[in-house]
């Protein structure tokens, strides 16, 4: 590898924070530049809707690595600049400020952006989306005990935000357009569990209701719904999903299909351009289909694979996706993907307690686990999914039988 090789990473994301030092560890001796349109070093995004919002952590405490690490690894970081176009033939990147940079390897870790909704009043003061540190900072300024918050969207982000705002003493209402919260991601049993907990914690959850307008003078005052109901609000947070940032890749003519398509070595359709994290769509050998994941695990693992590929050391990506969500005293850990499940087996008292595990099954095999305050069921569940054996649902449901005993040795 020529000492003068240049690697440019676009997006100061979780994947980028993993990639840059890993490149060095794997022996990359060329230059490394990170280009970001944000104004912070890469930070942990999950705490934005949890500890950061609730005030338990500040901006510095959520940095993935301190500045010194990037210095030590010789990573040049340019903040507040947007990459405009890629000229693949000349291996050049144009920045929006007119600057041009040559590359030998380019890595897109551009992540995802929030899905916006188009209803009257979304531009009022006090109406926010939550994706980046800037959003979270703005939201924090609008919080306050006894103020009223309306959250549009009953997915994990909406529910975590509800939990954080409750901690701050706010009155919180969550509006969900689908018939139940967490509709796309969990079984009805699990959704019912979260609905109960939020109710116990004093959050009002209204499902099957569409927000059609937001009103106020300059500052938001209320949210109107399709059925004529209205909710007073000092603060509105919209959390209705994300869209992968693929514009740059599209402009460059790379293959896109619900994300930037990459192979198992994190390579796009151009061998000198790689991609990692939320912006990618990749083939997962465990589930045997293309996936676009919104997760830290995927960002870290794929970035590590990308670093190896760049250093000429091909290691295929094959990992079991996992996620987590913290709300109140509940620690939810999710292993695997439940899409396509036919049966759900519940272990523990899901209706009365604050701890259970839900196993998503298909044809007698385990696809995914949602474990609340049950780290062991999560950890063993991971292994059971990977083993791919037939599992007796009766044994899974038997809370007196340690889950470990179901593992094939």
């Amino acid at each position: 590898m020529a000492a003068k090789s240049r690697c440019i990473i676009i997006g100061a994301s979780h994947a980028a924070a993993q990639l840059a030092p890993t490149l060095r560890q794997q022996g990359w001796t060329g230059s490394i530049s990170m280009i970001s349109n944000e104004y912070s070093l890469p930070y942990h995004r999950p705490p934005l809707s949890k500890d950061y919002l609730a005030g338990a952590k500040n901006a510095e405490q959520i940095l993935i690595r301190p500045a010194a690490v990037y210095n030590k690894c010789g990573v040049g970081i340019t903040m507040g600049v947007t990459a405009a176009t890629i000229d693949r033939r000349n291996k050049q990147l144009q920045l929006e400020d007119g600057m041009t940079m040559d590359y030998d390897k380019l890595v897109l870790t551009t992540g995802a952006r929030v899905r916006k909704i188009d209803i009257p009043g979304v531009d009022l003061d006090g109406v926010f989306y939550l994706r980046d540190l800037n959003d979270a900072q703005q939201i924090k300024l609008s919080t306050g005990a006894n103020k009223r918050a309306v959250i549009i969207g009953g997915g994990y982000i909406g529910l975590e935000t509800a939990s954080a705002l409750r901690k701050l003493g706010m009155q919180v209402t969550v509006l969900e357009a689908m018939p139940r919260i967490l509709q796309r991601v969990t079984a009805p049993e699990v959704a019912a569990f979260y609905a109960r907990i939020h109710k116990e914690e004093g959050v009002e959850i209204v499902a099957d209701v569409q927000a059609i307008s937001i009103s106020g003078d300059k500052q938001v005052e209320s949210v109107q719904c399709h059925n004529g109901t209205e909710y007073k609000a000092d603060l509105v947070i919209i959390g209705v999903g994300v869209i992968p940032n693929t514009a740059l890749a599209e402009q460059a003519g790379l293959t896109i299909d619900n994300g930037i398509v990459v192979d198992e070595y994190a390579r796009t359709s151009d061998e000198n351009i790689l991609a990692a994290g939320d912006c990618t769509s990749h083939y997962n050998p465990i589930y045997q289909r293309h996936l676009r994941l919104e997760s830290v695990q995927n960002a870290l693992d794929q970035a590590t694979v990308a670093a190896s590929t760049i250093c000429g050391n091909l290691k295929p990506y094959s990992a079991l996706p996992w996620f987590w969500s913290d709300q109140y005293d509940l620690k939810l850990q999710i292993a695997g993907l439940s899409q396509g499940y036919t049966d759900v087996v519940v272990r523990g008292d899901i209706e009365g307690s604050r701890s259970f595990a839900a196993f998503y099954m298909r044809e007698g095999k385990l696809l995914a686990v949602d474990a609340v305050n049950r780290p062991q069921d999560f950890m063993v569940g991971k292994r059971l999914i990977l083993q791919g054996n037939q599992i007796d649902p009766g044994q899974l449901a038997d809370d007196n039988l340690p889950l470990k005993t179901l593992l094939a040795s």
Partner: protein
Amino acid sequence: MPRVTYIQADGQAQEINLEAGSSLMQGAVDNMIDGIVAECGGSCSCATCHCYIDADWVDKIEPAGEMETDLLDCVSEPKDNSRLSCQIKVTDSLDGLVVHLPATQF
């Protein structure tokens, strides 16, 4: 600044000065010490920051909480001195601490 020694499974040791108040996990991540993955960034969810506390130090560290204990039960090669490094706050009284890293976090 408390000084901590991380020893890899192959015996290779690295001595690092850590900021008091940060965690053993963060100290490893900040100094790019192999062997600590820390997928969840310290929220006690992933158990990929598993380490072994040197026998001389086990008693000087606050015991693991319930969540941590449960997670530790499922790491590969758990031992009596197993801990999740993200749950251990570095303080001045831990100056000289020695931690051993497992061969794998998975």
